[in-house]
């Protein structure tokens, strides 16, 4: 493959819908355990920390700690849902089951497969986010209809982390490789994105780092939207997330071409 082809923009096609539908059919068979898996962790975190820590902390930024945490956990659950799908599940399909190989033997391109994976992983974020939102709303911590906009942010977070995840997937030698990304990238990101505490009390240099993290921008949008207010600097936050989504998917395309087509 020539370098021009390696780095050319992905040619997107509606054919990728067939890939999405394949994943959806698998998911439908395992929907209940899958939803529980997506929900259990963030909900335990929300209720455990929200009520437990909330009782000690009282209020943060003028709201209850539970309400504060709800926005953060909604964002981070979207991040983890897309990441798991684009790392572990996509790696199984690419490397272990050779599902991707079967698909590209049909009149499908690698770009179709990747776009299908990308949109599917974002769909998983959306599903996880919706379930979380139902719970948060049931406890009275979501203001409607503004919370609807939070759903759109969750989908955008899904696209951003799915793109990054697929890029990491293209570099992976095995499942173990993903622990580096999870512990060295995602866990610190969760700490620095205002999920558990506001970042404006942190030293200036650390705050500057926070500003480049996609989850930070996601949480900065989701939290006020849940509370029914317009986020400050919304356009910038959306632009950063879109940038991560597009750059991540482009990187995933180039790296996967290099891995599978050369």
């Amino acid at each position: 493959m020539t370098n021009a082809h390696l780095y050319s923009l992905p040619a997107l096609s509606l054919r990728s819908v067939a890939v999405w539908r394949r994943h959806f059919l698998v998911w439908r068979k395992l929907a209940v355990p899958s939803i529980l898996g997506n929900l259990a962790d963030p909900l335990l975190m929300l209720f455990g920390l929200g009520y437990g820590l909330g009782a000690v902390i009282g209020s943060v930024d003028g709201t209850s700690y539970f309400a504060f945490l709800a926005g953060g956990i909604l964002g981070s659950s979207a991040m983890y849902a897309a990441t798991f799908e684009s790392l572990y599940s996509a790696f199984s399909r690419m490397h272990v089951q050779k599902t991707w190989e079967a698909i590209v033997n049909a009149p499908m391109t690698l770009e179709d497969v990747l776009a299908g994976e990308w949109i599917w992983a974002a769909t998983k974020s959306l599903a996880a986010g919706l379930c979380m939102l139902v719970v948060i709303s049931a406890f009275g911590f979501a203001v409607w209809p503004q919370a609807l906009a939070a759903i759109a942010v969750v989908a955008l977070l899904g696209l951003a982390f799915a793109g990054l995840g697929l890029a990491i997937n293209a570099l992976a030698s095995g499942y173990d490789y993903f622990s580096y990304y999870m512990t060295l990238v995602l866990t610190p990101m969760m700490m620095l994105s205002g999920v558990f505490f506001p970042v404006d009390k942190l030293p200036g240099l650390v705050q500057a780092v926070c500003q480049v993290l996609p989850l930070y921008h996601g949480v900065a949008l989701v939290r006020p939207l849940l509370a029914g207010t317009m986020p400050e600097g919304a356009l910038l936050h959306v632009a950063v997330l879109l940038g991560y989504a597009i750059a991540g998917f482009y990187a995933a395309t180039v790296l996967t071409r290099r891995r599978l087509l050369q």
Partner: protein
Amino acid sequence: MSPLVARGLRKRFGGDEVVCGVDLEVAAGECFGLLGPNGAGKTTTLKLCLGLTEADAGEIRLLGEPVPARAREARAGVGVVPQFDNLDPDFTVAENLLVYGRYFDLEDAQIAPRIPGLLEFAGLAGRAASKIATLSGGMKRRLTLARSLVNDPRVLFMDEPTTGLDPQARHLIWERLRRLRQAGRTLILTTHFMEEAERLCTRVAIMDRGRIIVEGPPRALIATHIEPQVLEVHGPGVEAWMERARAHAPRVERAGETVFCYAQNVDAAIASLAGHAELVYLHRPANLEDLFLKLTGRDLRD
């Protein structure tokens, strides 16, 4: 126009050229076999022809479409049986066919009526709802073959279609492949089973180290390139006998403890075995494997 025409294919992986100037033309209705030892470049050649990997040089037309430029359009009329089964383990037998048909942009309503016929062909009638994990190796292979037919292709590419199967399963696949050819489909397969190639293929090409070294109908190749009779001898003292056998056969080779004599007529060599009860022999006509070994050597390829 022939369904597949390839000229001057070259492909390099890292520092090694694995396909070094391959020309192929497969006519409609042929069963064409690409033979060669491991690492000869067979699978890479198939991938180039399908547009799954890009050639460094050369031209390919598959079903009239230039590849890789219009590989998607070309593959719409092609079925592929990969070397290793990659059926979807999360789906049933019928779901595997349905989901695969969608990759060809077929509507569910177009695919569904084809499924019973495909299952019948694969000998899997009544197993539509079975999980893939419950199928035997032969059944999985037959389902993979049926899956490759879901788009009613004119050309089938098969990479080692019977590797890993027991004789019963292999014969069943052979029978199905003959049926496909009788129905007018063009078959292109790779194999390292010479028996398979001899039985199935109307024409074979033997590939070694990235090049096609000989090409033609199996019987004609054997007649042209190799003595018609073979005598295989093994047992204690075979080395001493081997030296005497050279007087009776123009070509005598040794592989491990077995001596192979190739000749127009091996009667004299057989006669020279009289009084050597310790030597065991087998007298048989030359086959494609003898030709293959003559051309590619007896050294192990890993």
